[in-house]
């Protein structure tokens, strides 16, 4: 894939940091290049200027020297002392007696004898004024030579150039400061530019969060980006996608609502009519009575199936709403078990939990419990006891203390659920080992799937396990997080405090807009 081979500098850092670093690096490279070029140009310029100045002065000095050279009363000291020079002057004059050039100089180290041969040859033999830059003992020197008119000799000056390098090195600090400042400005520009680049991304992320939380009418403000040719299409297509999604969800909800209405209405008629027939059952012939019984029991089952299907489709459509309330957990379980079960079932609660009030959806809690009890009654000759226990979920990552939970456990003494089936029985239309065999009044296999949804919706879970005492039977467990009821805070609404405004906020999302 193209994306994998793409060059990504500073991979691992955030997008914004990467953009900033790239801008900073760019600014650094450009300013270094500029500073380097500037330094080289300045140096060359300074040297050229110096050469010119020196050359002019040397030709003047050579004229002065030409007049005085050769006079016996003039020694090198006085000769050179009268000259206006910043360099080290020296003279080479042809001596016919010895047949060689005699050097006159004050500073022997930078005097005529140390001059490069190429320079002396050009001046003395070829009789040409010359300038030469050379290095001696690590020092850059500028030597200028002029032939002395009327004599076989030449006047030379050696100039030290260290001052030029000194001024250049003085320039270094401000130049590198400029590099640093430019780099900083570049990075700041990158930071600013990345902010502009990332703003639409931040907006998109915000809107996506809103949508995920169910506010499907959230959109990016197109008008803000409309005049940006790069971003406008992205914003438009994002909004388009969300609208399309919303339309689809609305369509699904409307369909579910229509289906719901279309199914509920005839079922109401069926139920009432079958009841009328039942009331007159004794007047019917025996065969008709049998048919009526079949009709009656299957109608009950079908009604339950429709209720469950409608409920589970509301879960699928995301159209369910929690009704969080203060729930005295032990008390509620006791009361529910007492009310739901025709035969008394003991409820054993952890004494620590007595009086604990948690926030949860009581109706859903009771639905799950009812389903477990119902399940036990159908498959295991009824529940043997109900336990309310305190637990702490284990955290995968180390020392962090787990979440406090309560477990409501419905115990039975039935055949139990084999290991392989324990997860599957919470799937839709799966009835454990008996899947497929459709005995009388055995439900339709949506109950446990619904129980799982009811639990999941409020942050809990359901599962089945073997009895801890090793006896035959199962533990059906509902685990709910302990969210302790505190003083009502903002956003928390208790059912007995539902106000008219709050009701207006609760859009009938459950079944859309049936009419």
């Amino acid at each position, binding site marked *: 894939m193209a994306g994998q081979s793409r060059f990504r500098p500073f991979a691992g850092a955030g997008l914004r940091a990467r953009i900033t670093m790239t801008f900073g690096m760019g600014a650094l490279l450009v300013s270094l290049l500029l500073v380097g070029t500037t330094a080289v140009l300045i140096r060359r310029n300074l040297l050229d200027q110096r050469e010119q100045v020196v050359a002019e002065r040397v030709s003047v000095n050579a004229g002065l020297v030409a007049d005085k050279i050769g006079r016996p009363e003039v020694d090198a000291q006085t000769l050179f002392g009268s000259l206006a020079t910043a360099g080290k002057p020296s003279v080479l004059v042809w001596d016919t007696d010895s047949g060689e050039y005699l050097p006159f100089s004050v500073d022997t180290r930078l005097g005529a004898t140390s001059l490069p041969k190429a320079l002396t040859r050009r001046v003395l033999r070829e009789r040409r004024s010359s300038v030469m830059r050379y290095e001696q003992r690590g020092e850059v020197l500028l030597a200028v030579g002029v032939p002395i008119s009327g004599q076989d000799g030449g006047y030379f000056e050696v100039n030290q150039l260290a001052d030029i390098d000194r001024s250049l090195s003085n320039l270094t600090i401000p130049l590198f400061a400029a590099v640093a400042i430019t780099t900083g400005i570049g990075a700041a520009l990158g930071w600013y530019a990345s902010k502009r680049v990332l703003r639409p991304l931040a907006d998109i992320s915000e809107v996506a969060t809103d949508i995920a939380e169910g506010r499907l009418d959230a959109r990016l403000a197109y008008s803000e980006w409309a005049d940006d040719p790069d971003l406008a299409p992205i914003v438009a297509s994002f909004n388009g996608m969300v609208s399309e999604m919303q339309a689809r969800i609305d369509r699904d909800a409307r369909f579910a609502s229509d289906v719901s209405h279309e199914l509920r209405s005839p079922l109401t008629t069926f139920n009432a009519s079958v*009841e009328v027939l039942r009331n007159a059952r004794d007047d019917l012939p025996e065969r008709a009575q049998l048919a009526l019984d079949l009709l009656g029991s299957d109608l009950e089952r079908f009604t339950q199936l429709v209720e469950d299907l409608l409920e589970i489709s509301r879960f699928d459509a995301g159209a369910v709403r929690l009704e969080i309330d203060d729930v*005295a957990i032990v008390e509620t379980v006791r009361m529910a078990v007492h009310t739901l079960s025709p035969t008394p079932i003991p409820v054993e609660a952890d004494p620590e939990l007595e009086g604990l009030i948690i926030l949860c959806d009581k109706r859903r809690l009771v639905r799950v419990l009812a389903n477990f009890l119902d399940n036990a009654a159908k498959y295991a000759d009824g529940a043997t006891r109900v336990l309310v226990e305190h637990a702490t979920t284990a955290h995968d990552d180390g020392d962090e203390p787990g979440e406090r939970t309560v477990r409501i456990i419905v115990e039975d003494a039935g055949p139990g659920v084999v290991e392989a089936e324990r997860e599957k029985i919470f799937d839709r239309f799966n009835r454990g080992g008996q899947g497929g065999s459709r005995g009388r009044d055995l439900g339709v296999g949506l109950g446990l799937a619904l129980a799982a949804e009811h639990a999941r919706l409020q942050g809990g879970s359901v599962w089945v396990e073997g009895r801890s005492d090793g006896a035959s039977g199962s533990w059906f467990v509902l685990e709910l997080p302990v969210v302790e009821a505190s003083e009502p805070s903002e956003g928390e609404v208790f059912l007995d405090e539902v106000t008219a405004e709050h009701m207006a906020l609760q859009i009938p999302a*459950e079944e859309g807009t049936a009419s």
Partner: protein
Amino acid sequence: MGTRILSVEDDERIRTAVKLALEDEGWTVEEATDGESAIAAWSRTPADVVLIDIMLPGIDGFEVCRQIRRQSDVPIIMVTARADTHDVVAGLEAGADDYLTKPFAPKELSARIRALLRRTRSVEPGTPRMTFGDLEIIPQEGVVTMSGTDLHLTKTEFRLLIELASSPGRVFSREALLERVWGHGYFGDGRLVDVHIRRLRTKVEQDPANPRHVVTVRGLGYKLQQ
């Protein structure tokens, strides 16, 4: 003359089937197909119980309920095809005493009707009058007064208050109240109690937002105090 039930339902098949089932219980059923004719029928001959489907053409079930409630404290049962909070609470707010979700078992409907018919203002003879601050309950006469003025409570509100007053200071869970007032023999819908408590408060409390008599015990239920 027997018990008369006014059934307001626009679906002819449901209406007929329900009528047949209710007639089997020995009740007389009068039918109305929409809101206007329901109100007209009610004005002609008041019934003992009114059954209203929420989704009606024209005037909806909520409005029919409100209009009848304005004239009378007759027991009203709302029938809805939607079990969500909005419809249920709105129906109860409009003045309904109870509600049923389609598809309902006719046995359930007749049980609810019977419970409503039993819910009268009569109390055991000899129940003394009770005072809770400015609130006075005279059970024998079915009268509740606040600072000497008569309060118009529906039968359900009256029964709810009497139940709470039977043991002042004791906390009644929603389930206990559902069983005692509504006669629901199963784990019923707490919203029924919550909405009626709220309606009761608007009548018996000086400041319904900060109730002094009918107070909530968080996580447990309600109690009546001085």
